[in-house]
């Protein structure tokens, strides 16, 4: 069973990312579960979401306490939330950041991708609200190998059929540009 935790802020699509990942894995024949940790917070406030992936039905319904992978959509969240909480020594963390993994000084396996840049370049959202979740999925695919790009493409076209192409491009760009520090 693989456990993934997403961090972002309200409106950035962390919950959607968690669900897209689940869908992509589901499409490859895995059992999945994806859920947000819901607050009553408003647009802009920190948000967490979880995905579990397994080869048999998932009975465990708790939150994810020891994620195998952590995905951070917005570095600013790290100012208030300990995104590394519960990470195991061999867990990895994927960050939306223009910096290189090594510059971040985290004691885990770190990957970075400049998802905001990718989104803005492709016209996904705007500078205030770039839509970065598909790019993060591309980075996830490459750095973890858990789902492949075909499945991600399929998941994107199911969940956002209207702008599927651009989103797929974003995922691909991220797939190709993610920098893994391990």
């Amino acid at each position, binding site marked *: 069973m693989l456990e993934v935790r997403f961090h972002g802020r309200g409106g950035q699509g962390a919950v959607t990312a968690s669900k897209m990942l689940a869908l992509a894995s589901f499409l490859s024949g895995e059992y999945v579960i994806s859920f947000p940790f819901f607050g*009553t*917070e*408003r*647009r*802009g*406030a920190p948000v967490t979401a979880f995905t579990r992936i397994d080869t048999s039905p998932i009975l465990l319904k708790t939150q994810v306490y020891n994620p195998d992978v952590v995905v951070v959509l917005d570095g600013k969240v790290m100012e208030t939330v300990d995104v590394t909480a519960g990470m195991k020594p061999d867990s990895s963390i994927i960050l939306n950041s223009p910096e290189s993994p090594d510059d971040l000084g985290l004691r885990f396996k770190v990957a970075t991708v400049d998802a905001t840049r990718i989104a803005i370049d492709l016209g996904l959202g705007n500078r205030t609200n770039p839509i970065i979740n598909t790019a993060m999925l591309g980075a996830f695919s490459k750095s973890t190998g858990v789902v492949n790009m075909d499945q991600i493409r399929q998941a994107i076209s199911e969940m956002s059929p209207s702008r599927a192409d651009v989103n797929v491009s974003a995922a691909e760009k991220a797939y190709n540009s993610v920098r893994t520090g391990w």
Partner: protein
Amino acid sequence: MMPTSIPQQELMEPGHTACQGCGATLAMRYALKALGKKTVVSVPASCWAVIPGAMPNRTLDIPMVYTPFAATGASISGLREALDIRGDSDYNVVGFAGDGGTADIGLQSLSGAMERGHNVFYIMYDNEGYMNTGVQRSGSTPYGAETTTTPVGLERNFKKQQKKIVADIMMAQGVPYVATATIAYPEDLIRKVQNARKITGPKFIQILAPCPTGWYYPPEKTIEVSRMAVQSRMFLLYEYSEGKFRLTKPSRPVTVKEYVQSQKRFSHMDENEIRILQEEVDRRWGELLEKESH
């Protein structure tokens, strides 16, 4: 140009958890400026029950009683009487509720409290929908609006009924002080609350409080949209005090069409639907002008 005349005193603190550009917070902020510190407010389920933040946070510098959704009117009745029994008649007792909590599930309790004539304020912040639960239709949602329970879809199921105007109902019920206001005009809003303070008995004030999250416009436009609501006559400002009715006649009128185009919740509306809305707006404007004329 003179700086604003509104009171400097802040009884709402920063650090609350309202959305960016929330109009409802301004409604509270202004109301408290007019009411002052010797005030207790009862707030039912609504955005305002969440805005102060999770326990142990509070964002108001006055006591705020959290009240079940349907219970605002009754709770201010109890607070008022108890404070009087205690000898604390100088407190302002205020119910502060959303439009769902006022026009729908709280209407009965409101109407009862007003009928009994307690010396209370009831302030309805009208964001024209159930926003805290994610933008559903309320009785106070205007004709034409899309909400999650009036999704347009193939059947064009946007809200088909005209807005239920609670302030009008309160006048019909004989409440001694009834007024409408909106956050784009804080001086007017504050003056109305101050006028209301002069009256012993029930007072009802309906404050239009635009909601970027539920009306689908960018957060920086909150004041602009509030202003346009008045200029387009979609929301009429009036004051009804002990039998006297005064209507604000907005300058620089804007068409209903322009108003409607400022918000995505109306984006599906066709010319005909906009016309229906414009006609209703004109009809009501005529009606209230008449009302003022005697």
